[in-house]
């Protein structure tokens, strides 16, 4: 059985392993023990604190495979993306250059440094053991965070953001970012991996603040860099499609280092929020459960939050049927309410957006 739960101190080694195996490396999940330890502590503090408005809390979750007892994934929530320091993005804009004299109107695309997304809640730092990629475990880890937000809306912003790693090229057996090569490189004279690591250990906003505030004219970037703007890393295509299906949409914002896309959504637009509902638990032996679509089921506890993968098996009166094992993992007895949502998402055709 798979369960998503808050990270604890004993998960440190697993987190370190997951951080080191993230592909590409994630700025917001540095493979740096002190930083990860700090994150777990901060997450635990956030869960204990009484919160009325989102602030600089971080909630760090892990995905545990109870069959093997192994922690096989992690994902975080940053209650307010720019609470401690501004969350910078490049914002795609269009300038109109018009000449009445020549009767021409010419649009020029630019990228402008922005920290507008700072107020949103950020879904970030997801890393999953490769064996579980693109399975239900992947979806559970990614979307369990929405189940958490759905229960504690006062702790989060109404707007959610999720950034996907950008497009990289392999050159001389190294992963390089064509966007960084054409943009950041001019200002920093360090390669993408160095700066990414530096940003992870220190801070990304730190670096953004040294970047010039003038819009970058897209025609002056290399074709490779232009092509990378808003393009997700191929390894994250599945995740991206899932989030689009969930109800996120592409925004004008891209990552300042690799130009990876940033998706935005208001909570109430998301499938999980619209479809999830409270159901009293009915405990039934595994073998007597009817067949049903997979579902995410979460308990109603803050510090002991658990979200498992189960079946959306409802009784005619709306009770959710769980196995004794599932109920135990969730820490619920018969009759207690759990939050449940069917896993399948509506199909999305990006061409229509």
């Amino acid at each position: 059985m798979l369960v998503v739960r808050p990270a604890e101190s004993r998960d440190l080694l697993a987190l370190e392993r997951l951080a080191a195996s993230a592909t590409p490396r994630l700025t917001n999940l540095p493979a740096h023990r002190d930083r990860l330890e700090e994150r777990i502590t901060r997450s635990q503090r956030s869960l204990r604190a009484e919160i009325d408005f989102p602030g600089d809390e971080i909630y760090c979750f892990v995905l545990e495979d109870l069959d093997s007892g192994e922690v096989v994934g992690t994902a975080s929530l940053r209650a307010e993306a720019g609470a401690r320091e501004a969350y910078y993005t490049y914002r795609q804009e269009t300038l109109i250059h018009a000449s009445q004299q020549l009767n021409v109107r010419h649009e020029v695309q630019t990228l402008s440094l922005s920290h507008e997304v700072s107020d949103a809640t950020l879904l970030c730092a997801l890393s999953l053991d490769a064996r579980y990629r693109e399975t239900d475990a992947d979806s559970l880890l990614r979307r369990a965070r929405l189940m958490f937000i759905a229960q504690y809306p006062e702790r989060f912003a109404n707007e959610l953001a999720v950034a996907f790693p950008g497009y990289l090229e392999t050159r001389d057996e190294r992963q390089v970012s064509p966007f960084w090569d054409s943009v950041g490189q001019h200002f920093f004279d360090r390669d993408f991996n160095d700066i990414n690591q530096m940003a992870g250990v220190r801070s990304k906003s730190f670096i953004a603040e040294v970047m010039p505030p003038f819009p970058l004219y897209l025609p002056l970037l290399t074709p490779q860099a232009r092509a990378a703007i808003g393009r997700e890393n191929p390894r994250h295509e599945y995740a991206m499609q899932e989030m689009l299906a969930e109800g996120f949409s592409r925004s004008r914002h891209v990552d300042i280092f690799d130009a990876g896309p940033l998706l935005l959504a208001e909570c109430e637009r998301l499938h999980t929020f619209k479809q999830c509902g409270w159901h009293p638990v009915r405990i039934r032996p595994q073998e007597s459960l009817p067949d049903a679509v997979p579902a995410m089921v979460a308990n109603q506890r803050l510090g002991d939050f658990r979200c498992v993968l189960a079946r959306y098996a409802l009784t005619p009166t709306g009770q959710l049927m769980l196995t004794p094992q599932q109920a135990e993992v969730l820490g619920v007895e018969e009759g207690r309410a759990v939050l449940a949502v069917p896993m399948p998402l509506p199909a999305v055709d990006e061409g229509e957006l």
Partner: protein
Amino acid sequence: MRIRPIARHDIEGLKVLARETGVGFTSLPDNHEFLSAKIERTLAAFEGREPGDDRLYFFVLEDERDGSIAGCCAIEACVGTDAPFYHYRLGSLAHSSVQLDLHRTLDTLTLCSDHTGDAEVCSLFLREGWRKDRNGALLSKVRWLFMAQFREAFPDKVLAEMRGVFTPEGRSPFWECLGSHFFPMDFNEADRLTGMGQKSFIGELMPKFPIYTPFLSEQARAAIGQVHEHTRPAVAMLKKEGLRWEGYVDIFDGGPTVEAYIDDVRGVRDSQLACVEVIASDAPACERPAVMAATTGMADFRASWISHAVTRDGAGACHVRLHRDEAERLGVTGGDTLRVLAS
């Protein structure tokens, strides 16, 4: 050969020049209205009828024996007053963070009109057959004598715009990397419009935020402030006069604008007034004359090379001896004053 202000009857001669200048010499399009407007502006300036800043002093090089026009040159008294006058300015901006252990200075190009109000020397052209006997130097330097003589008619600074780098195929790497993205037209069309004085579109279409030069192609960067190989002698001549490149480049081709404080220009600073004595013989032929002389009146301004050196008497006054034909060419007689410059 002598220099004089252009006159109305020079219109046909000027058209011949305009046709010969060819592509890339945008200030002399072969267009009757445009050229005669130029002549009228010049007449107004020379006759003192244009008291404001919109003064153009347009000179021709004339073969006084048959009145044919061999070349031309001009001074705009004050650029940017009638139409905007734009440049890109090469500057730099430090980019530094103690914590990131970062300290770089990056070059930027920024749109500006800093030269508004300066004088400009321009429109120099010499026909093929006359490229000898220092006629080119005469056309170039006569402007310093004129400015020295009528110093109060000009501002503090003077500039000259130099043609930028082009490939043998006639393509401008600077334009291709920068301007072409912002102008929905080709280089020649943009250049032509500018030549016609229609510059307002530049401010409307050109990028107004600084361009960091590292974002330009290597060829475009290499073209910043560099001149077309045909323009090198002209730049060398101006540099010898003390004009310098201070980072301003042409919007389109990235060619340098050289500039100086007028009082610092060698030809202005070193020119002096001399009293004329006339010798009753014609001047011997001379291939490399060394002294240039100009008259001191505006409307009847004349200038030419002369053959004798300037001498200084015990009281420090300057004297210059002219042969009969030289005096005639300049329209002076003994006892008149000339402004002279030895080179």
